[in-house]
């Protein structure tokens, strides 16, 4: 079965489970993206004049954003229908925003409990997106998706987080948008606390220098490779001290779910301990390198 077919079936299957169990979820990215936001490529080169066509987004998994209060219910229902959690929220990205579930014959799915870059509280943020949803058929089944404006924001934030500022999604969702469409995206970003992340993806991050999240999105949007720099930026972006402490701890501990996938089995206590030690060494070496680089820079500037 082609991968793209499996992804569509995953969306449709999850929508049925959601409807059967009173779960609100929005389908995002992949086949849920509005056709007007798809990349346009010229027609076949051997035949000049062939009409340009829109290209379906290539995805490796399905993505859904779930009402935060419904996340646990969805995961429980999915587990009863053959899905297995591959990565828990804590095993995922620095944002801990999504869990990955796999199925014997459907495409994997990332279940998002929030979307990175949207700093508003996840529950009202979801409600805002939910209020402006509409239905699109995926695999012939009506699935709720965010408004086209919200889709623009999601695609820009996603590409920005990956440091891909030249990504076609940013071109189609922002660069080629009209002034009115951009203004609508800015208004929505303001409502969702996504101004800094949006600015990072659209060349205006400098307007937010010093704001919470500035360093994080500067690091992400420039493809920062240093784990320590991203850790520090992520910690600085937390709105509360408790959140910052928790993030710091989470980010530097090894992730057993990831280790289990890499090893193909549950890691032993010794392997987890060794991973802790390795992470600590990575952190120490990078911190030391950053300190040296910073010191050399300041000496050179004198």
């Amino acid at each position, binding site marked *: *079965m*082609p991968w*793209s*077919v*499996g992804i*569509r*079936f995953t969306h*449709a*299957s*999850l*929508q*049925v*489970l959601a409807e*059967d169990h009173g779960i609100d979820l929005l389908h995002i990215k992949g086949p849920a993206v509005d056709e007007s936001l798809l990349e346009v490529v010229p027609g076949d080169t051997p035949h000049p004049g062939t009409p340009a066509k829109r290209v*379906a987004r290539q995805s490796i998994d399905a993505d859904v954003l779930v009402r935060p209060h419904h996340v646990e219910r969805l995961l429980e229902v999915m587990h009863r*229908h*053959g899905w297995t959690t591959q990565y828990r929220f804590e095993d995922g990205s620095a944002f801990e925003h999504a869990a990955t579930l796999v199925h014997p*014959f*459907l495409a994997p799915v990332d279940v998002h409990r929030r979307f990175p870059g949207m700093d508003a509280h996840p529950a009202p943020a979801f409600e805002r997106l939910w209020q402006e949803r509409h239905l699109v058929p995926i*695999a*012939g*089944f009506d699935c709720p998706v965010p408004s086209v404006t919200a889709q623009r924001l999601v695609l820009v934030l996603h590409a920005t987080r990956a440091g891909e500022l030249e990504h076609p999604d940013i071109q189609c969702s922002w660069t080629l948008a009209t002034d009115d469409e951009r203004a609508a995206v800015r208004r929505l970003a303001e409502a969702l606390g996504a101004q800094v992340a949006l600015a990072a993806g659209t060349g205006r991050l400098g307007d937010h220098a010093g704001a919470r999240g500035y360093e994080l999105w500067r690091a992400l949007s420039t493809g920062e490779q240093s784990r320590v720099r991203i850790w520090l930026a992520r910690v600085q972006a937390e709105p509360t001290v408790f959140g910052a402490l928790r993030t710091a701890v989470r980010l530097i501990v090894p992730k057993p779910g990831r280790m289990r996938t890499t090893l193909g089995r549950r890691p032993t206590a010794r392997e987890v301990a060794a991973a802790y030690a390795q992470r600590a060494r990575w952190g120490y070496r990078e911190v030391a390198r950053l300190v040296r680089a910073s010191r050399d820079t300041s000496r050179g500037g004198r």
Partner: protein
Amino acid sequence: MTAYRIPNRVAHVVPDGEPDLPEALFLMQLPDGPPQVLHGPAAWIWLVAADGEPDVADAVAHLAGRPRQEVAADVEQFLADLVSRGLLEEAPPS
């Protein structure tokens, strides 16, 4: 003549890049499947029937460039098979 329709919980996908007359069609009963595939004329029969065409045999014969009487029996038998598998259902008379 019997008209057909897609059951509420049957998902269907024609893969990206397929020609107007697709070579393959994937179906799945939601939410648990498993997925199934129909190839060539089998896919055409499902698509024509799902579109509500009242004389499926006639439409498929036209697509295949064959006389209706040559394909009608096979088409009707296949439609009955699709209904028994839950991949199509008979539409109520309008």
